[in-house]
């Protein structure tokens, strides 16, 4: 069972890592879908399976919302300000640093908040760290939404160990879906000819 949880952590690391490097929205949404599957598995370590499934269903609904919108908008390449280094080598290097920080800080957090479990902490921190990195190096709306969903997944994974209220789970699901809808709205607003 523990091995399966660690496999989920590895999958989360790979998906968040590739999300950072990829530039194709189809691949990004596919990776996000796999990422939500791992988040579901990590969350189920502290929540009942049926409750943890909320994360999976919500995440996939968010992906469907974003995917449907992207299918219907004209693809326009909007280049943001280029003052930060954004090449794939830089992103690879920055992601490597995040992974090293996560490896170093996971046991420490485990000692501060005992009972969560190393894999859940590691998975959560990887999502948080790589999600924040994602947000830090892009201004493109679609990628910002992907970054925010990743950060929220990381937070919800660790928070599931601390709070098991159904209402909180429901409200966080509303936030995730709302974020996807806002993303869809922003993507549509970028392309007013699609209205």
């Amino acid at each position, binding site marked *: 069972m523990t091995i399966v949880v660690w496999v989920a952590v590895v999958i989360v690391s790979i998906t968040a890592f590739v999300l950072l490097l990829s530039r194709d929205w189809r691949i990004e949404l596919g990776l996000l879908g796999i990422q939500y599957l791992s988040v579901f598995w990590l969350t189920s370590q502290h929540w009942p399976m049926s409750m943890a499934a909320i994360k999976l269903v919500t995440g996939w609904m968010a992906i469907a919302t974003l995917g449907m919108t992207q299918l219907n908008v004209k693809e326009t390449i909007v280049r943001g300000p280029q003052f930060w280094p954004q090449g794939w080598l830089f992103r690879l290097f920055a992601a490597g640093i995040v992974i090293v920080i996560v490896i170093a800080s996971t046991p420490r957090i485990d000692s501060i908040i005992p009972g969560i479990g190393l894999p859940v902490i590691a998975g959560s921190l990887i999502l948080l760290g790589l999600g924040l990195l994602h947000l830090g190096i892009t201004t493109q709306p679609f990628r910002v939404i992907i970054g*925010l969903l990743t950060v929220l997944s990381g937070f919800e994974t660790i928070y599931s160990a601390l709070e098991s209220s159904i*209402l*909180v789970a429901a409200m*966080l699901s*509303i936030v995730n879906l709302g974020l996807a809808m806002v993303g869809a709205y922003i993507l549509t607003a970028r392309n007013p000819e699609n209205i």
Partner: protein
Amino acid sequence: MSAPLIWIIIPGVFGIFALLITNQRILFFLGGVLALLLAFIAIIIPIDTALQFGNLSLKIAPAIEILGRRLVLIPADGPLLAIFYGLVAMWLFGAVLTKTSNRLVPLGLLISSLMIASIAVEPFLYAAILIEIAVLLAIPLLLPLNKTPGPGLMRFLIYQTLGMPFILIAGWMLAGVESSPGDLDLAVQSATILGLGFAFLLALFPLYIWLPMLAEEASPYNIGFIFWIMPTITIIFGLGFLDRYAWLRASESLQQALSIGGIIMVVTSGLWSAFQRHLSRQMAYAVVAETGFSLLALSLPPEKAIQFVFLLIIPRSLALLVWALSLTRLHENVGLLRFSNVTGLARKYPFASAGLILAHLSVAGFPLLAGFPVRIALWEGLAAESLGMAFWFLIGIFGLLTGAIRTLAVLVKAPQGTGWEFQEPSTTSIIIGFAVISLFILGIFPQIFRPLVGNLPAMFEHFGK
């Protein structure tokens, strides 16, 4: 009837149905009247007190339960509800002048109801999620479908969303501090995480970079509404934390952090405002300064702090309303609000120009205007604590005043012999005129809102004592 039903659910449900109404005039009228009615009910009908009308007895229950959690509005919340919905009504009535009713009325009411819910919800940690949902609703308000989103909007979304996880985690840790008060490390960690959460939510230094960016991108009126409602309610939410945790309230480190954070906000916003050449960005820096004033007020001894925080609410709201209305009028006519585009506009739009200048001067604490009495009281309170702080406060105020004077110079600048060419619609002139007069009335007679504002600290169990 229960208080949350009246002041949270009814405006929220109306907001949803209002999305279906397309007629701007009907929307502005219905939305404004509803908000005014809610304010009026809050003034005349006390919560949780039975009123006798002949054989009829009327009592508004303070709480309702939803999925095992409670929304509670206690009798002491009445004045806040009256002020809040009164101000919402002013914003919604003003929307008809700016032709933004179709967005502002439904989304404004939904955001307002979520904000009140964030104050009423128990356990109060859920407030962070409700504020986040309100932030998500603010996006369509700030971004019309025919506009490309700018970096300011994206940063607004990112920064406000990042605030929520910090607050939720901090809340969980604070519960741990409550059960083991001797654990100093846990207390420091939880206070730090809480501080980070509020730094994101309130856009504290240096996280306020999105405010001027967003002000430049969005409609001045709608952004004015968001700049008013978000910090105001978030500060009240923050007061809830201070009220609940005695160790946090008594912490000297927190007082120092608040005073240093506040003074940095006031000084930096004053300096940026002094050198700013865009009218919307000037408004954003004024909002940053206002948040700084609130932090400085919170850094004072608790009995003064709570009074000052509430005294700041009405002048700030009124100044922002006048500012946003005036900016919208100018924006509709010149588009870009850079100094180079608005030169000499005072001769065409004297009321909007006057409103803009006087609102700016009010935020800067100019005598006779709404902001003056509370600024002078705050300055006195700061001077009693630290002369250095009082000096830096003055520098910040001086920066804001410089910004106002530069704006005035640009608006009235015109070649010699240029005549007046009034191009303002009379309704706009009358409404801005009334709003400006109210800025003066509040400045000259600050005690008129005392009966409402004076009772606000009673909302809190410990601050109210």
